[in-house]
């Protein structure tokens, strides 16, 4: 695909996304809104996994940090929604550093396990602490408003999410092309060479991890006000896996690919709803077939780059002691 066709395709998709609420019913609009959440979460995780090559199996933890920060600050302390955003972002970045600093020196698969453990700990804390409403979570979270216009309908939240998704996509793609993005790619391809060239690899990894955490937590904030009730069940290990699926399905490191993957991860099981109990079975089979016949993702980050990624991700798999 040439750059022109890609651009055209993106514009067409955006137009379709804007027009969707006027042709769809509430159910599909809700599915689409959920898909947009996954687009944002997927982009956040894409920075961590796709750009910096760090496997994160507990990404839903940051989603939870955002959702609970907003939920608690709004219901207990009566804050305005918009004020909770910077607090959530700061908290998430803080957690990212606390978890990342000691572990980012580790091998990538160990990092995966630590993040998995961290994700579970956050979920169990949410179940057990009284401030997070324990198992039933927080409900009755007020709706946000912009200058007197309250967000209440499905359409409002759809458009809010669409705007956020576009902003995040723009930010992530700029980031990917920036100096920092190139440093991440370098670390991902060859850590030692990157360090030899003067890149502080732990600092750069920490940056990737924290930026991913901030994006995840922002999605969580909006999730809290959209659902108006949050519970620990929404932040389970399965949630982290589904977000990771979106990233891998679409294509690691590819902005458009991850967006497509996010939409598919949400839309496919919903479409298969008529298949009742068979739907996750079909979904599982589709995953396997996809990985066997098109492992680089549906919309890889360019053929050449994809080949590089294969090498990079495969690097850890070789336990060659040199």
């Amino acid at each position, binding site marked *: 695909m040439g750059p022109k066709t890609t651009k055209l395709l993106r514009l067409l998709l955006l137009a379709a996304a804007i027009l969707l609420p006027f042709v769809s019913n509430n159910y599909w609009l809700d599915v689409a809104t959920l898909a947009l959440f996954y687009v944002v979460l997927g982009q956040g995780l894409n920075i961590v996994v796709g750009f910096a090559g760090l*496997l994160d199996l507990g990404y839903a933890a940051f989603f939870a940090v955002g959702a609970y920060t907003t939920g608690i600050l709004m219901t207990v302390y009566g804050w305005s929604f918009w004020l909770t955003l910077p607090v959530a972002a700061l908290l998430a970045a803080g957690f990212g550093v606390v978890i990342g600093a000691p572990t980012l020196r580790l091998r990538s698969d160990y990092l995966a396990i630590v993040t998995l453990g961290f994700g579970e700990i956050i979920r*169990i804390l949410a179940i*057990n602490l009284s401030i997070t409403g324990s198992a039933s979570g927080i409900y009755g979270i007020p709706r946000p408003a912009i200058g007197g216009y309250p967000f209440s309908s499905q359409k409002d939240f759809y458009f809010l999410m669409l705007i956020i998704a576009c902003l995040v996509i723009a930010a992530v793609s700029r980031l990917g092309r920036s100096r920092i993005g190139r440093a991440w790619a370098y670390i991902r391809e060859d850590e030692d060479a990157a360090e030899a060239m003067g890149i502080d690899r732990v600092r750069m990894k920490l940056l990737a991890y924290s930026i991913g955490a901030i994006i995840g937590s922002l999605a969580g904030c909006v999730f809290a006000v959209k659902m108006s009730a949050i519970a620990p069940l929404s932040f389970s290990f399965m949630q982290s896996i589904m977000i990771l*699926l979106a990233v891998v399905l679409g294509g690691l490191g590819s902005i458009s690919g991850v967006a497509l993957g996010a939409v598919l991860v949400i839309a496919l099981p919903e479409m298969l709803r008529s298949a009742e109990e068979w739907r996750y079975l079909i979904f599982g089979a589709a995953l396997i077939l996809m990985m*066997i016949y098109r*492992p680089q993702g549906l919309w890889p980050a360019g053929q050449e780059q994809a080949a590089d990624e294969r090498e990079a991700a495969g690097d850890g798999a070789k336990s060659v002691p040199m």
Partner: protein
Amino acid sequence: MNTLVQTLIDGLVIGAFYSLIALGYTMVFGIIKLLNFAHGDLYMLGAFIGYSLLSLVTGNGEGAAGLLGIAVVLLLTMTVVGVIGMGIERIAYRPLLLAPRLSILITAIGVSLILENGSMAIWGAQYQVYPLQLPQTGWSFGGAQLTYTQVAIIAISVLLMAGLQLFVRHSIYGKAMRAIALDQTASSLMGIDVHRVIALTFFIGAALAAGAGVMAGAYYGTINFMMGFIIGLKAFTAAVLGGIGNLPGAMVGGLLLGLIETAGTLVLGGSWKDVVAFSILIVILVCKPTGILGEKVTERM
């Protein structure tokens, strides 16, 4: 004092299950560096196939299965699930051996979804009660109890683990496995049939998980299609705790995790025991990333 002894016994029993499952994780990881997420579901599948076989033997729970019957069912289930494990490797993992590690991880999630939902379609969503009542008698020392069943479970687990250890250390196939874990390409150049050895690894791992599944079904009495998920996660933790890729490590890790959990329940209460287990996991990974018995690894990625 009683409480302490009892906690020790409780921890050993649950630890034995963790160890058996952790072995499969560790073997597969050691040899092809795959976090096999579907492994816990093989444990579940073992429990269900054992359930169906036992129902056949006992005529839907009417008659009693003798000790011999139980042993036959256990071995048969282990074989069947072992073959299923090989099939999974052949269909889902082998084509991806050279692909990026993430794609094979996703495939494992796909396999897990298929196994869980397939089992639900075959056996139903409800809890099934095992057609078997194990004796509840045993020894009692000063308030603490140790039943024959518990002893049998620990003994069978130790036997299976010791057998595996001997096999990997001393047989020619074990040697091949260790060679592949070190360097796949070089092993293949030395004339080792890499695919066959990997298939064998899957067979053994799946069979051990299935054995644990049948024993857990018989011991606890109920099974359902989601039972593999949480225990898979725990066994995985155990494998890491002991040093992933290391067989004795998986055994030690499993037993240790069992003890940590029961002690955590006693001291902090049931709601916090998982936090304790996962915190210890993180601390160990940060301070001694190779686990308790792991070998020193020089590579940094």
